[in-house]
């Protein structure tokens, strides 16, 4: 699939600059809400909400689902879901303003689009599973917990990097030599 670029996307910001903005956002999150940022909790709530539509009794018996959506509880009535909506909007607005809002598939040049989408789905599955296992994702555990010096979050952060580096060699064809500017 060849995608014709109509307007050139602007380059990404300097990573340290973006990190500083991220740090200020994270501080505001703590200052205004007691807690940091996160995404995986809300993702789990979306899953429970969908399951609830088709199979309420199942939600009631699985412990981690029941916490979010047992009986009349609305799993989406939670602050984390609104944080997730905001994250989505923020990503969209920023992409729009920087000429990056367009339909495309990011992949290494050595694999096909279909292969890339299959691996994205599998990777997402593994990630979603691991994020519940670790009780938090990269943003919730590593970023937010790291900033308040939580020991478990630091151990978690390093294990994410270790897991990634350990497997990177075996899946190198997925990512080999993209032309990044």
């Amino acid at each position, binding site marked *: 699939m060849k995608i014709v670029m109509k307007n050139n996307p602007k380059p990404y910001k300097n*990573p340290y600059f*973006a*990190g500083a*903005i*991220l*740090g200020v*956002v994270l*501080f505001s*999150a*703590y200052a*205004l*809400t*007691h*807690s*940091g*940022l*996160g*995404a*995986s*909790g809300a*993702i789990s709530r979306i*899953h429970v909400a*969908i399951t609830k539509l088709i199979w309420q009794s199942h939600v009631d018996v699985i412990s*981690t689902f029941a916490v979010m959506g047992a009986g009349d509880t609305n799993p989406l009535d939670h602050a984390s879901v609104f*944080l997730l909506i905001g994250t989505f909007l*923020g990503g969209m607005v*920023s992409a729009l303003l*920087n000429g990056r809002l367009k339909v*495309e598939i*990011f992949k*290494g040049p050595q694999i096909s689009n279909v292969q890339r989408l299959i691996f*994205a*789905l599998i*990777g*997402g*599955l*593994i990630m*979603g*599973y691991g*994020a*519940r*296992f670790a*009780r938090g*994702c990269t*943003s919730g*555990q590593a970023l*937010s917990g*790291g*900033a308040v*010096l939580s020991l*478990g979050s*630091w151990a978690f952060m390093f*294990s*994410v990097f270790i*897991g*990634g*580096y350990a497997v990177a060699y075996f899946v190198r064809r997925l*990512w080999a030599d*993209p032309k*990044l500017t």
Partner: protein
Amino acid sequence: MLPIDVIAVLGKFGGYAVFVLIGIGFGVSLELAGFGDSRRLAAQFYLKDMRVLKTMFTGIVVAALLIFLAAAVGLLDFAQISVTQTFLWPGIIGGLIMGVGFIVGGYCPGTSLVSAASFKIDGLFFLVGTVLGAGFFGESLPAFEDFWNSSFTERYLVSDWLGWSIGATLFAVTLMALVMFYGAEKTEEFFRTKGTGKVWSWKITKRSYVYGASALVFTALLVWVIGQPDPVRKWSLMESRYSAQLSSRDVFIHPLEYVKTYNDASVKLVTLDLRSENEFRNFHLTGSENVKPENFLDPKFVVPLSQLPAQGVVVLIAADDSVSTQAWKYLKVQGVNNVYILENGLRDWNTVFAGKTISGKSFNIASPPSEVLQLFPKDAFAPKIKISTKKRSGGLCS
């Protein structure tokens, strides 16, 4: 004083609106960093583009410096900040699994959201995968639930582990981040210059980087030098927040309310007796613990009290109410919920229960049973204990 609880201040919908705004800030910063692009995220693991490490650690260090600087100067009460609970081994195993998902799929949950929001199909597929993965986890959990709930510690900081002050720990973390940034710059330069004939050097020439790094080090030093406030300084900073509860005597309970709470199986009661050892030996309430006033300044003693379950109630008993009031102040500023003082200590105790019998039989006045309450009129005491069941959850991941 921070932190504010937006949902308590603005109501549910106003509070949720603030969460949306914070989310927008989060989404924008991830998108600006290039985290909507799986190729750049994956490049971290091939050492070619280290922006994941750079952005993440800059974010962590900047946020940590702001949080602990604000706490050091008394703008923010760190005891009220919710720190993600630690389940060490499940966290490590989960982290390893996530590392694999990261390199196979190219995103993490937050970044796939931003990617999908900018119409990237691979990000959308990844996001759908995370929703399904969360489901599979719930289904499979019964097989290893004990492990998942193991190695638990609430609020355990790197500084506690090292035995250092928060200031020293933060300074070390800042230095470590700068060393990693330096390594990241040099690694990227190595791959850029490889094969091009350009010279690879050790020197960082970008002036803004030197200024930025100096600013971080200076702030970290400042946080270290000021130090985090001890309970004494914290009370002087936070007096206005809590002193009304003392002056209205809302935290002083009547002996009968103590008896009621003592016999309430749903309450986890901790009774701390601050009288002298001799007085304690002569008579004390069953289940109470003899403690010294200076214990209330010792984190080892106070931290478990701040981690009581939501139905936990702490009651203080002293020979003089000024002693228990002082202890109450120290517990409050260290984040202990539901702390009450037994009014007049045990001086009223004997008078209240003297000569009382239950169906003609006397009872042990060190642990009066709940039937005792029926010997008194209903309005014999004004109930004060309100258990705030609001337990601060471990962040937004749950």
